[in-house]
């Protein structure tokens, strides 16, 4: 697809619109402008801009500690940003807690898996959104729905859907976390290193799933250190380095080496067609 390197007309309405985004005239589903976040003395994010368009997979790359997880958690409402604006479907929004982001239609697979060990798979998948019948938990309907979702993701190695998550292997837990995120009718799915602990078949399954979500018109943001995976599923790449967004463009503007260059040094001489990132701005 066509990627603009200048500000498109509709972006002039938004302060900080620097033309890092999607196709002209089309509002991205999520638009971040100037997001900053610090923890005590540690500045984790410096004025980050990011666009997540519908029907596209955006890969967020960066070295360890670049701020990828902090950015994800800021969008998910786990962290509150210090500065910056969040625009959702063209509207300015404030995400103060995880409920706000879920209400917008944002689902997140966290890197540090957000599962309760003492609860079983079904209980975890519906946590916070339990189905009720006559005021009490509707276990049967939740179990059926969870079973269908897991089957559709071909998660077949778990022995029982009713076993506590503590008894699952790392990969199975990750599969449950992914299933938990895609079970809801969401508009944006963010996955923070979803394949890190997965076997080959399960990695394949998650990558296929990401492509399927995209085909359904969802916006997907995926964080991965595996550039094979990134180049296989992503439409766009955004690179964070030490809390700054150093490059953001269509996948065609990158090759593996240039992504690595951006991650490690913040610039690349190998740019395929000169990424339009506002790296210079920061």
């Amino acid at each position, binding site marked *: 697809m066509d990627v603009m390197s200048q500000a498109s007309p509709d972006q002039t309405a938004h302060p900080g619109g620097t033309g890092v985004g999607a196709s002209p005239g089309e509002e991205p589903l999520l638009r971040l402008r100037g997001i900053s976040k610090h923890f005590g003395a540690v500045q984790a994010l410096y004025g980050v801009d990011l666009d997540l368009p519908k029907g596209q997979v955006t890969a967020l790359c960066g070295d360890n500690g670049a701020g990828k997880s902090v950015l994800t958690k800021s969008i998910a409402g786990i962290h509150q940003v210090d500065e910056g604006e969040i625009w959702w479907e063209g509207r300015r929004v404030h995400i103060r807690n995880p409920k706000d982001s879920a209400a917008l239609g944002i689902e997140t697979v966290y890197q540090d898996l*957000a599962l309760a060990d003492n*609860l079983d798979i079904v209980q975890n998948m519906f946590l916070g959104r339990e189905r009720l019948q006559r005021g009490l938990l509707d276990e049967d309907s939740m179990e059926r729905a969870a079973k269908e979702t897991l089957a559709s993701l071909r998660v077949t190695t778990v022995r029982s859907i009713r076993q506590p998550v503590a008894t699952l292997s790392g990969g199975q837990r990750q599969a449950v976390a992914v299933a938990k995120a895609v079970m809801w009718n969401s508009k944006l799915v963010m996955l923070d290193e979803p394949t890190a602990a997965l076997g080959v078949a399960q990695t394949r399954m998650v990558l296929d799933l990401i492509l399927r979500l995209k085909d359904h018109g969802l916006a997907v943001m995926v964080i991965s250190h595996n550039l094979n995976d990134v180049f296989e599923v992503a439409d766009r790449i955004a690179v964070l380095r030490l809390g700054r967004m150093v490059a953001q463009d269509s996948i065609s503007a990158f090759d593996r080496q240039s992504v690595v260059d951006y991650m490690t040094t913040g610039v690349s001489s190998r740019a395929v067609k000169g990424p339009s990132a506002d790296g210079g701005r920061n």
Partner: protein
Amino acid sequence: MSGIDSQGGLGADGTAAPEAADLTAAKVDIVPPEIVAGSLSQYFHAWWARVRGGDAGVLPVVIALVAVTVIFTAVSPNHVFLTPANLVNLFDQSAVFMVLAIGEGFVLLLGEIDLSIGYVAAIGGIVTGQLVQPSWNWPWPIAIAGGILAGAVIGWLQGTIITRLRMPAFIVTLAGYLIWFGVMIQILGTAGSVGVSSSVLGNQQALYGIVYSYIDPAISWVGLAVIVVLLGGMMWLRDAGRRRRGLVASPIGLTVAKIAFIAVAGVAVVAICNINRGVMLPVIGVPWVVPLVLAVLAVWTILLERSQFGRHMYAVGGNPEAARRAGINVALVRTMAFVLCAGTSGLAGIIYLSQQGAMNTNINGGQLVLYAVAAAVIGGTSLSGGRGRVIHGVLGGLVIGAIYNGLYLLGLEIQWQLVITGLVLLAAVSVDALSRQSSGVRV
């Protein structure tokens, strides 16, 4: 190139790394047996494997009950321990420990502790007792509600301080221990006690009768039959329905065994209570405190295991961060745990009031707390949070009550009671520690 893996994962030739498959292999050894077993014998196989793996489940409490019964029957004067009169008395004494342990279970479930509940129970008993004194003479149901409410308000205060000001529960409730101890002495004043008497007809008599009035034998048999049929029918329908719809369910044999066990235990309790245990005048019947404890067990079990709020309590106990990310109001859940704990303790205090006939400054709130914690833990509740059921408080309370009763029968002096109680608490905590070590701890 730290953290970058441009070669890993699917290799260029698309072959799998050999170790990849292992990552998705389940830790089968500690999967609960009832969800993977197809029959009763398979269930016992899986269960035994799990016990050998270190997760003993209800085994410690069963062993403890059998051991306590055998020992005290053997050594008590004239083997009085197992007589109907003593068994009913034992249950009356255990009821206070049971209800206190159920209360403490709510905060233990969140990995917290409440050290104040002994004197919170005292305050609850005093409030209820005061409300039925001649000067007030409120209806006894309202007096009971008042005692529970007093406990709940205290729990709300302490819980709010703990969750909103982020103070350790240990310290806040230790302060509460002292404060409510002092408040109790102040309220009781020079009289030193507030009593309920069977000779004051009406409300005082009703409260006294929680422990000391008995259900007509015919009615108790009918009541038991109704409970067994309703409960057994519900369990049967639920399990059968889940099996039919292809959902995870325990094997038929296990369902039948559970129902049979409830029926047998119920018959045993009612039969023992319906033997005349009077010395001069006949004393026959199930004390009202038995259905009261069962009601507490039923209501709190439904709340904890069948309601959304209960599910959220388990989630907060297991992983507060996961609960927060799921949109659960963690602070509210934690505060409510202290409210439920202290409110339930208020009810325990009312049972104590009935059982002692009075609430006086001799009540040992410190010992009661330790008994409650020990009872919950012996019953199977984990001190580290995330694991525990209401029934654990009942079973553990029975063990503690049996020890308390047995030591009393032996006429052991107070110092030995203290030593033995301490040892029991230690034993309970070691069982908890052992089961935590072995049940693959992942955080």
